[in-house]
């Protein structure tokens, strides 16, 4: 019997999203389900892992395996899962606060460890769930928060530059206002063999209404990309305005995957933990 191909809507769980109306994350959810349908992923062979934050609600809205973890630890949980179940397609989702602040250290090492997974960061430059504080990607002069009424005064984190420096083999930037293009980027990220990092500019309509201007500011990358030259990628990332979309850098590195020791049992594992 032929199993009919799944459509994007078949990958949605049916749980109603509690994001604000107008939130960019809706477009990311839609693009991700379209990418899954395009790739013909088997639902039971996919796990979506997240941390904490508005964007980290994503696994609940997708009808695959999912794990809504703890703050900043999405990549740690996903790495453990991938180590134990290399057969699964592992997709990690979260926000800029979760991924670059409390989860910053995990981000660095996930990039250099290069396990086979895609990491989607929905970057709205704000902590939305806790009512609008500055995040690592917030520009230093953003003063619309009572916590930082004069701005943070701290230069913002450049996710693509950090990912490149930490050794990621796939770096891309998408925009929730360009869902079709975002779908293409997510397909490439999931297909990439190794750690694929996608920064998605996904505006927060409630705490960052100024981000509605992104529709005018975001533009496709002008250079001949992606490149597999890290020096060229670094130059493009550093010289860019942070609003250019597309796959910036794609290079194959050896994928790290620990030996899957199916012969282990609880007694052996316990012995290995003894000092």
């Amino acid at each position, binding site marked *: 019997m032929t199993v009919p191909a799944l459509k994007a809507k078949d990958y949605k769980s049916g749980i109603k999203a509690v994001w604000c*109306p107008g939130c960019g994350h809706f477009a990311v959810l839609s693009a991700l389900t379209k990418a899954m349908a395009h790739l013909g992923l088997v639902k039971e062979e996919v796990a979506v892992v997240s941390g904490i934050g508005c964007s980290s609600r994503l696994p609940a809205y997708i009808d695959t395996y999912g794990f809504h973890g703890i703050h900043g630890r999405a990549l740690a949980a996903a790495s453990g899962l991938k180590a134990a179940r290399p057969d699964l397609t592992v997709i990690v989702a979260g926000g800029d606060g979760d991924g670059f602040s409390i989860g910053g250290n995990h981000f660095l090492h996930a990039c250099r460890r290069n396990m086979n997974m895609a990491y989607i960061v929905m970057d709205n430059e704000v902590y939305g769930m806790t009512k609008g504080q500055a995040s690592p990607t917030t520009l230093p002069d953003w003063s619309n928060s009572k916590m930082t009424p004069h701005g943070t005064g701290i230069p913002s984190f450049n996710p693509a530059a950090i990912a490149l420096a930490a050794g990621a083999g796939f770096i891309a930037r998408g925009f929730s206002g360009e869902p079709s293009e975002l779908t293409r980027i997510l397909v490439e990220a999931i297909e990439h063999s190794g750690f694929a990092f996608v920064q998605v500019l996904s505006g927060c309509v409630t705490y960052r209404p100024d981000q509605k201007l992104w529709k005018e500011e975001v533009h496709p990358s002008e250079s001949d990309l992606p490149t597999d030259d890290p020096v060229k990628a670094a130059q493009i990332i550093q010289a860019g305005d942070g609003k250019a979309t597309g796959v910036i850098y794609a290079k194959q590195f050896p994928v790290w995957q620990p030996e899957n020791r199916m012969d282990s049992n609880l007694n052996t594992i316990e012995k290995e933990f003894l000092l």
Partner: protein
Amino acid sequence: MSEAETVTIESVEEFLVHAMELEEASYEHYEELADTMEVHNNLEVAELFRKLANYSRLHAEEVHQRAANLALPTITPWDFKWKCPSAPEAFCMDDADYLMSSTKAMEIALFNEIRGRDFYQQVADNSSSEAVKKLALEMVEEENWHVEMLREWQASMQEEQPQEDLDPPNMPE
């Protein structure tokens, strides 16, 4: 696809795949808006979006019926021939607001319906296939009817006062 490029669809099958995607995206978009408005207890606007979703669903079913016995091509999600970054009737999501009034919701709906109509019109204008032209013009006619209906609906609405936000975003005074 840039604004300067021309929409050219030369087969009925390809046209129907575009129409299906457009109408289904429209349905999902309105359903999503209705759901989120319910979550935010803006029930009047939720009901309006639910009605619009139902119209789009019926339209999508109609397109499915037309395509029933045809072998349809598969189009990758980023290869649809609209001039906007997503399906024309599911575009201006970020104009939505949890406190929005029915009149604002109607503006969003009109914007979307007009984009949908314009897409079908562009297909009719640029296709060299008579069958595609005919079908596209039928869709234009239906979308025109939708636009007129929404305009009448909008005209019958009374100007609403902005709603008070009992739990406003924590912004500086």
